[in-house]
């Protein structure tokens, strides 16, 4: 892990941030509507708005300038780390984000914890079980989990566990119990992703000849799975952290609205509806920055968990996501070398198609 590598990765991260910033700026600019007029409109009642006041406020936010000039204003503000103030509320953007952050972090962290446990249990059980109906059912769950609309799941959970049986509060962030249903709702799609990836790599490991060898030498299936196959299979799941983060953030927009929670997703949603450009941009940049950092951290931790990857990195300067994923899928840690003979595995395929995540999730952020 050279310093040059680190610097170049950070440089790339900055480029990603800049692209996210520029894309969101252009998108917001082209949206029909006018943030100043929206602010002055009295909640939508009939009212003629004073054009002089509109002009004055537009000038205050540089909205009267051509697109390029507005862009430069925003970009220079950004370089000075000045994110501006929200047009609708007058709160500094950093303050608004900071106020929303803790509850979203709590929600995402709990959801991720639930998703990890559920994902691992589903994948391990599906791999271990000898009952084909159970394996098929469990294997189908991830697809279902991803397909279920988050808001529908949220409303149904509320209906049953709050309105029908008053176990959890439906509204607010006041009590610890209030976080349970939102976290479960968010965890469903997250656990689906984890279970899917883990199940595939476990299956992949499970058909390797070494399994037969170990079984023959008296290893129990469970022990074999936990001690040998799982550590290997967890690695590809780790590459998902960036995606999981993106999914958690996108999901929080829906979950925070359904459960009336304060948070980043809710903030993003209201900011977009009222075309609060500085606020939306602040949130997009924040999300992109975290995304870049999560990816960077994953890549830095990876070689530590699997030393061969550091070597692979040094060996081939052109390593890309697909290669890394391939290395994960085929590297079996302490497992005998016959595994290398495996023909192109599933995990390899999914790794290469999914390596374009960076650009995609940035877009999610800007749309959220």
């Amino acid at each position, binding site marked *: 892990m050279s310093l040059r*590598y680190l610097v*170049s990765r950070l440089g*790339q991260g900055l480029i990603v941030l800049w692209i996210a910033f520029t894309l969101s700026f252009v998108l917001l600019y082209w949206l029909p*509507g*006018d943030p100043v*007029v*929206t602010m002055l*409109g*009295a*909640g*939508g*009642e*009939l*009212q*003629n*708005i*004073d054009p002089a*006041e509109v002009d004055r406020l537009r000038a205050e936010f540089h909205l009267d300038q051509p697109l390029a000039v507005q862009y430069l204003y925003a970009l220079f503000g950004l370089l000075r780390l000045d994110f501006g103030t929200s047009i*609708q509320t007058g*709160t500094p953007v950093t303050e608004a984000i900071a106020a929303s952050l803790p509850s979203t972090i709590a929600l995402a962290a709990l959801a991720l914890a639930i998703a990890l446990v559920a994902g691992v249990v589903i994948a391990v059980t599906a791999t271990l079980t000898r009952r084909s109906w159970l394996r098929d059912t469990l294997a189908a769950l991830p697809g279902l989990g991803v397909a279920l*609309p*988050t808001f529908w799941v949220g*409303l149904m959970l509320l*209906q049953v566990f*709050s*309105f*029908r049986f*008053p176990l959890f509060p*439906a*509204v*607010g*962030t006041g009590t610890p119990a209030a976080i349970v249903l939102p976290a479960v709702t968010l965890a469903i799609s997250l656990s689906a992703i984890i279970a*899917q990836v883990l199940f595939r790599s476990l299956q992949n490991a499970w058909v390797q000849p070494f399994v037969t060898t170990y079984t023959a030498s008296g290893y129990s299936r469970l022990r074999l799975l936990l001690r040998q196959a799982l550590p290997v299979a967890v690695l590809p799941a780790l*590459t*998902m952290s960036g*995606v999981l983060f993106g999914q958690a953030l996108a999901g929080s927009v*829906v979950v925070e*609205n359904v459960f*009336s*929670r*304060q948070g980043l997703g809710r903030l993003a949603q209201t900011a977009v*509806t*009222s*075309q609060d450009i500085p606020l939306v941009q602040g949130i997009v940049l924040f999300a992109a920055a975290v995304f870049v950092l999560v*990816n960077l951290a*994953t*890549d830095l931790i*990876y070689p530590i968990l699997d030393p061969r990857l550091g070597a692979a990195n040094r060996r081939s300067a052109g390593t890309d996501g697909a290669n*890394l*994923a391939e290395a994960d899928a085929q590297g079996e840690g302490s497992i005998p070398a016959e595994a290398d003979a495996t023909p192109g595995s599933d995990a390899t395929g*999914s*790794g290469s*198609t*999914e*390596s374009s*995540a*960076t650009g*995609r999730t940035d877009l*999610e952020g800007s*749309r959220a």
Partner: protein
Amino acid sequence: MPTFSTPTFATGSSHARRSTTATLLSVIAAGSLLLSGCSGSAQAEGESDAKPQSGGTLKVAYDVDPQCIDGQQQGTNVTLNVTRQITDSLTDQDPETGEIVPWLAESWDVDKDSKTFTFHLRDGVTFQDGSDFTSESVKENFEAIEDLGAKSSLGQTYLDGLESITTPDERTVTFTFADPNVQFLQATSTMTLGFYSSDTLQKTPEERCTGDIVGTGPFSLESFEHNKGIKLSRFDDYDWASSLAKHDGAAYLDGIDISIVPEASVRNGSLISGQIDVDTSVQSQDEKTLDAQGLGIVSRPNPGVVYNLVPKETGDIASDKAVRQALVKGIDRPQLQSVLSDHQAPATSVLAKSTAQYEDLSDLLAYDPDGAKKLLEDAGWKAGVDGIREKDGTKLSTTLTYWQDAPFLELVQQQLREIGFDLQLDKKTLAEVTAKQAEGQEEFTFGNLTRTDADVVRNYFGAEEQNSNSRKPGKIDEALAKTTSEQNADQRTKDFTEAVKLIIDEGYSIPIVELSGVVGTGENVRDFAYETSSRYQLHDTWLDGE
């Protein structure tokens, strides 16, 4: 080379899914009804004979976040409903009779020109921070509102033409206007002209928006967090309730907890399961469920200008008087009731029934499709092959951009099709509609305007004021001018009625439906009441603990 080794999310359809949210939501809502139909106990809610008891926190759910909590600046209902609890006004207005009665002012004198207003203030009133409320407080506040400029659009309407404020002594304050301004007395009853302490007025408008506010009202603002909620707590020393209040002294409730719950089905479920006490925005499809549960529904039409179409003289079609008149005649208002909830009603004038100067003008709004067709025919609008009329190559067709939840417009569309008028409906976001209206390019706008005093008509339609029809001054303005100096309430109502009749006759307003806020209340909530502008006054509200 560095790598981005992150696989993407396996399905790319999450956005597509979300976009169907609205459609699915109605399905869910229907499902929820079935599930929730069997929970909760039926108990009739209403005015109880029991003696009011103190204590408890009223849990209220709003549908949207008040972006700014300062009622001197923000004119939205969510904000003003909070402001009414935090601040008091010089006067109060009886929601039944429209009469202006004492509150922080014990009495007042108006000169015969209606230009000078002198208020004699009540003794012993303090702000929640302990500072005294004096004539100087009144002066400071009204000057601060003037300084807010366009940031306080309602405030500017109320204080239009204010020349000077003098304070002869601590208990007396005198306002002098350049022109007769009868509406000012009613304006002093609004929460927009409520009072903040001297310290509050030193803050910037932005700071006040975020909740740095101290008033004289029965509740003080504890906290305001965007998208999370608003907490109010009782001001124990409060002893200057309006003369309309049912009791003196501090409020019954310990506090009010307002949460922002954007999903209607969640508000409804929370109300039925007793997790909240008040849903401030009941959807019409949920009304029957609440009725079935024996929960209370309170509603009152928003006073002021009803949901109406407002034509512009600058438009190609809307500038034709015959077209405007045909539109007034071409709508079958009683039939609209079939698509409205029990708490909404078709319009019977440009003004809603709850407006102080309302008079029933439904005769002028009678359905007369033949009359409408004749008007159009005579004006040269001939039916084309598709049934839509045209004249000199111009089609009798327009696109109405609106954002409101107004399904009745589709019925209006069908009705107008009968007379050969093609009304295209284009529902957009509030931001888009407001921006379009600000451009002023549209033939017709749609909406309502809330105020208890009919001066809202002068303000909105007056050629010298906002002139929403972009028309030249005329007889309408002469009639409206009389209302600014007429001190006799009955005569003033007559003057307004004359102006409104002229407006309808010229087709400058095409009234459609009266907008009502519908509030659902839990089974323990007592004396939840509207004040005159159809916002809430919670000083008398109490929770029945049994």
